[in-house]
């Protein structure tokens, strides 16, 4: 739990312009009210179950388990949610909150486009206006998602400033919010940014571990030994970890994007290569010696972010969770492996977690249980992976 100033250990806080302070305070007050409101929770549960298709399956990956020859592997199938990823969990919560607050317009940043698609979806459902900011580089590598957002009625603004990727989209969204606060809610997509966003997004994503814990208890009669999730800003990872944090026997592993390797400049592995800094929040960031935020790189647009959520930074500091780095190559191999082995095409983001499982599972005894969160489906990545393999296909 964060303290009253939104701190997780030394991390977190609110490093934003004065112009936005009353907006985040208003959001915090509204959230503290509605999170315990039975009517709000009933509506949200209905949306999650009837609209988004929850609960998502906990699937026993038998072929993968046999092939790797070690731990018993379960996949938490967030890829089966409506819109194809875990992002919808948070977005339905925030959109409902925004509606209760009387907001009529949602703005959002997006990297891979999954959060943008989820926000555009919720805006369509709630009859709200929607503007999505997306780095220009990302609009090119995720063209299909740009089309989906437009189809859903959202305006997509390509961001050309800085490195034209996710961090710039976040900054641009923050700038847009300072311009128009009264009717606009910033639907932030990950467990990052100023308090109370890391807590709000965490709580809405915690449904992943709430379900997986009950599901694994039902299937196995005990807790898992390992929980793996990919980790950029860290929303699916914190959602996958949250209800296990107090269960010390469960090893929590976040899989960061190493890009071309953590010993190169083309990486996005924040815990593995970054240092403590301040950018909207205090946490670990990839940065140079003068605190300039580094241009990061990963094949995965959704993990291509130079920071990590403050709660993950704390879990790293205390040693409660471990953060490993997975390269592009390993992730692409895992993308193909899961497709062939289980008939499940994971998002390239999620493939980072699968890649680490491929390394870890064979080293474990057969009585160990591992849960891997498949945070999204990989249809959106097929063209990019084909290009990575030197095959040019039309989307």
């Amino acid at each position, binding site marked *: 739990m964060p303290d009253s100033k939104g701190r997780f250990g030394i991390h977190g806080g609110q490093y934003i312009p004065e112009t936005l302070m009353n907006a985040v305070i208003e959001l915090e007050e509204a959230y503290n009210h509605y999170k315990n409101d039975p009517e709000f929770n009933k509506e949200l549960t209905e949306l999650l179950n009837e609209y988004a298709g929850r609960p998502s399956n906990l699937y026993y990956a038998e072929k993968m388990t046999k092939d790797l020859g070690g731990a018993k592997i379960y996949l938490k199938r967030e890829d089966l949610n409506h819109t194809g990823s875990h992002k919808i969990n948070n977005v339905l919560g925030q959109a409902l909150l925004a509606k209760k607050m009387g907001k009529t317009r949602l703005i959002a940043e997006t990297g891979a486009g999954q959060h943008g698609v989820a926000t555009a979806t919720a805006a369509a459902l709630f009859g709200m206006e929607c503007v999505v900011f997306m780095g220009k580089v990302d609009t090119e590598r995720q063209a299909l998602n740009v089309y989906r957002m437009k189809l859903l009625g959202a305006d997509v603004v390509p961001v050309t400033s800085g490195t034209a990727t996710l961090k710039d989209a976040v900054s641009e969204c923050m700038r847009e919010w300072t311009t128009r606060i009264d009717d606009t809610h910033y639907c932030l997509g990950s467990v990052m940014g100023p308090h109370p966003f890391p807590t709000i997004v965490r709580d809405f994503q915690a449904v992943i571990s709430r379900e997986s814990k009950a599901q694994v208890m039902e299937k196995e009669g005990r807790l898992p030994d390992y929980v793996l999730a990919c980790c950029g800003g860290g929303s699916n990872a914190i959602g996958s970890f949250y209800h296990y944090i107090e269960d010390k026997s469960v090893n929590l592993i976040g899989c960061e994007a190493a890009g071309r390797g953590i010993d190169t400049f083309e990486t996005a592995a924040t815990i593995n290569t970054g240092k403590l800094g*301040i950018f909207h929040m205090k946490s670990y960031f990839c940065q140079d010696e003068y605190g300039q935020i580094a241009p990061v790189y990963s094949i995965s647009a959704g993990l291509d972010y130079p920071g990590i959520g403050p709660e993950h930074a704390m879990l790293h500091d205390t040693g409660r969770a471990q953060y490993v780095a997975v390269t592009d190559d390993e992730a692409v191999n895992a993308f193909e492996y899961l497709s062939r082995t289980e008939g499940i095409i994971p998002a390239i983001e999620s493939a980072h977690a699968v890649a680490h499982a491929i390394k870890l599972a064979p080293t474990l005894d057969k009585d160990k249980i591992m849960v891997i969160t498949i945070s999204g489906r990989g249809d959106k990545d097929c063209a990019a992976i084909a290009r990575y393999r030197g095959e040019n296909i039309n989307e």
Partner: protein
Amino acid sequence: MSNIAKAFENGKAFVPFITCGDPDLDTTARCVVEMQKAGASLIELGIPFSDPTAEGPVIMEASLRALENGCTTDKVFEMVKRLRTELNVTVPMVFMTYANVVFSYGIERFCKKASEYGIDGIILPDVPYEEKDEFDGICKQYGIDLISLIAPTSDERISMVASSATGFIYIVSSLGVTGVRSQITTDIPSLCAAVKAATDVPCAIGFGISTPEQAAKMAASADGVIVGSAIVKIVARYGKDAPEHVGEYVKSMVDAIK
């Protein structure tokens, strides 16, 4: 009395801003000299940051150009030293930058050097009242004013923010980011009155001001006027030849608010 307070002693203050290192630090230094000559009361030196959340496109692009041209915090410090020792700049100067630039340098190391080299204050637009303690304690130790900002949305926060302010108060004229605006729609007189009711610290208005007419209008309510993007635009247009043009512009603004 802090040096900054002196800037507000002789009538309305004109406070120009410049992004350090765009196109190079030598040009920045020459611009600062011209600003002093033209009658600037206080000068804001922007240390470029890669992700300046409060800036509009003009200052954001200037920051990125400066970084691409190799500007660093240490090089900005060296320029400040030169301004104070070789170029006879005596006007109060404050840094405007972002939390991570100061934090990553080491807050103490940053403030110590800033104080030694003759910097009077620091503006950190991404450090609101709630987060200022970590910076303010050390700033005070080195005699540097951490400048507080007040926005059109501050409302009931005004007295809280203003009552702990030192140096001067930076009143943000409009919603949104820095940059030239044809119209400022905020009720500036009311905003300034609310600030003045809470503190005796002088207040200066910035964001969106570019013309002598706008400056004169703002100066009627506040103790000073801050202009950034309009100057950064001049530098972008004239490059190494900018100092003379910057001087002329600053003179026109100083005259307008007298």
